[in-house]
């Protein structure tokens, strides 16, 4: 199966929500995940820092256009796992991994993988907003410019589109040349989201994106995530179970570096198969 050609590389044209299975309510997605194309497939993935194993033997499938929440106690390797999906750990000294991560039909850790393109298509948003030291407009534009996604003349319009998409345009349209550090924390995080979206990723990895935000900004981000599917496949690491319940289609529960259980939101929260999962979601551990 070659899903590559199906996906427009330069997503100038919005990806149509043509997949009928995704259009339905959550339950349907959960019930039919086997039939959906997999945006990412992880098999037997193990990662270690300087010999200390952080995550072990993880196997997980991310259905195209779904939102997967990764939950678990702190220090269980959630973030490490997320960061290994677009090889953000590569630079950390002492990092070793094996197993396979596939993006559609492509081995992410394979020979000759273009890291730049990989990261354009598998984007990441971090725990703390990390705007660049340049104007608000430049922040969104710099990724587009770096990847030469659109002609220079259209960059501006695209910046506006993305800022509108994340709901920031109204707040910043009259101060696009201001420092991003004058924005509130929530606005900064939305800006970082807009920056990631501007390079038209297929998958977006979010590492506790709302943990440093106030409740109102959190709601804005969550709302946005729901609007982004099914165009984009989303993985969100969160320590906030209520958030996982609100936004996710599927939940993966990590503990001590292992993937304990994965299932639909309903199943994990109401009918967990494993004892640890039940203890965690009811607040007895973690």
């Amino acid at each position: 199966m070659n899903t590559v050609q199906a996906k427009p590389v330069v997503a100038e044209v919005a990806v149509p929500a043509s997949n009928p299975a995704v259009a339905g309510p959550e339950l349907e997605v959960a019930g039919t995940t086997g039939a959906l194309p997999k945006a990412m497939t992880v098999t037997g993935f193990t990662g270690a820092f300087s010999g200390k194993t952080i995550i072990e033997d993880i196997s997980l499938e991310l259905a195209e256009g779904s939102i997967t929440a990764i939950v678990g106690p702190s220090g269980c390797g959630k973030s490490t796992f997320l960061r290994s999906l677009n090889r953000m750990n590569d630079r950390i000294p002492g990092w070793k991994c094996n197993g396979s991560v596939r993006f559609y039909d492509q081995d992410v850790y394979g020979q000759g993988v273009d890291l730049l393109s990989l990261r354009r298509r598998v984007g990441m948003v971090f725990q703390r907003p990390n705007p660049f030291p340049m104007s608000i407009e430049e922040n969104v534009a710099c990724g587009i410019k770096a990847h030469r996604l659109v002609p220079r003349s259209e960059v501006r319009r695209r910046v506006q589109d993305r800022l509108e998409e994340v709901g920031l345009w109204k707040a910043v349209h009259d101060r696009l040349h201001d420092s991003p550090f004058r924005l509130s924390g929530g606005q900064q995080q939305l800006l970082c989201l807009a920056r990631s979206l501007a390079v038209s990723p297929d998958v977006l990895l979010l590492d506790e994106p709302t943990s440093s935000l106030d409740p109102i900004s959190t709601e804005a981000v969550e709302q946005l995530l729901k609007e982004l599917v099914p165009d984009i496949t989303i993985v969100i690491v969160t320590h906030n179970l209520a958030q996982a319940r609100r936004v996710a289609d599927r939940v993966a529960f990590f503990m001590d570096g292992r993937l304990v259980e994965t299932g639909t939101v309903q199943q994990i929260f109401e009918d967990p198969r494993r004892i640890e999962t039940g203890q965690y979601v009811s607040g007895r551990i973690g």
Partner: protein
Amino acid sequence: MTTVFAPELEKAPGSNGSPGRPFHMLSLRVARLWGACADRAVPWVTGVFAVVPIAVLVAITVVLFHEALPAIRINGIGFLTRSRWDVGSGYGIPIKVHGVEMAPHTSYGAWPLILGTLESSALALVIAVPISVGAAIIVVEKLPPRLSRWAGICLEVLVGIPSVIYGLWGILTLGPFLSKHLAGIADHVPDVPVLRFFRGPTYGAEGLLVSGVVLGIMIIPIIASTSRDLIRQVPSSAKEGARALGMTDFEVVRKVIWPWTRSGIVGASVLGLGRALGETMAVAMTSGAVLGTTAHSIFSHMNTIAATIVSQLDSAFADGTGFEVKVLAELGLVLIVITLLCNFGAKLLLKRFGASAIAPAAMGN
């Protein structure tokens, strides 16, 4: 009278024998008294030490002004623009102008020295800044910790090498090397404005170019270490964000590291400039030490204010009237004003960076 919260003092001795209790009540009292005195005394004593730099600074300023005043009165503002440097006839009968004694036919002009100081320092910056910034980037972003520690040692060595040794290297090794290898090129530079400055005979081992290169190497550690520290301060979250967007290292440097550090790097460069302006021995050995003319090419002999003071001070003694010594003080004042302006500018730039308009939130938490 302050009450000391010390319950064990009020208790009868021996009431309970807890092991943490001091053995001897008297020694505890003495210790407390001593401690209380020391608490008061230390700020005073260290405060006196902290005033020393101010005292030294005031002393320097007063002495320099006092010495220079007669020279300022006589040379006037023209001192800064005149070129001729003539110590006059030492054997003639001293004349008196405005009550100041001096040798006849003297003329002192600082312009060539001011220009030489600025030219050599500018050349030093042109050489030092790219090297320092490039090295700082690779040290922070690419080298493993062990190698970057070695780079740090290199910077310490550059600081530690005495300036006379830089001078010795400049005059005995670098000068001959440059004049040998550049002579061919220098002859063929076209004789047109601007480029003309790079044309001409290379005059052996001394001159503006050698001084500039030596100065450049000497100020590298200042600029490089400051740049390195600034680049280290760039939050890794911003760099990671850029990499997660699929940016190359070059783009990370251009889009994140450079905007984050540029005003600081400019400040560091100006700090280095301040050092180059005041550097004495290395320039005195490599400049060719001419007085009274400005450099007409990059290979010309030249001189700077600091080098002139050090090389002329002993011959200035020979001036029985003592006037030349006073002229050198005036030169010193000019130099101090230039360097201080420079350092002040650097401070402003680095401060603006530290308090930074650009990233208060990200730096803070």
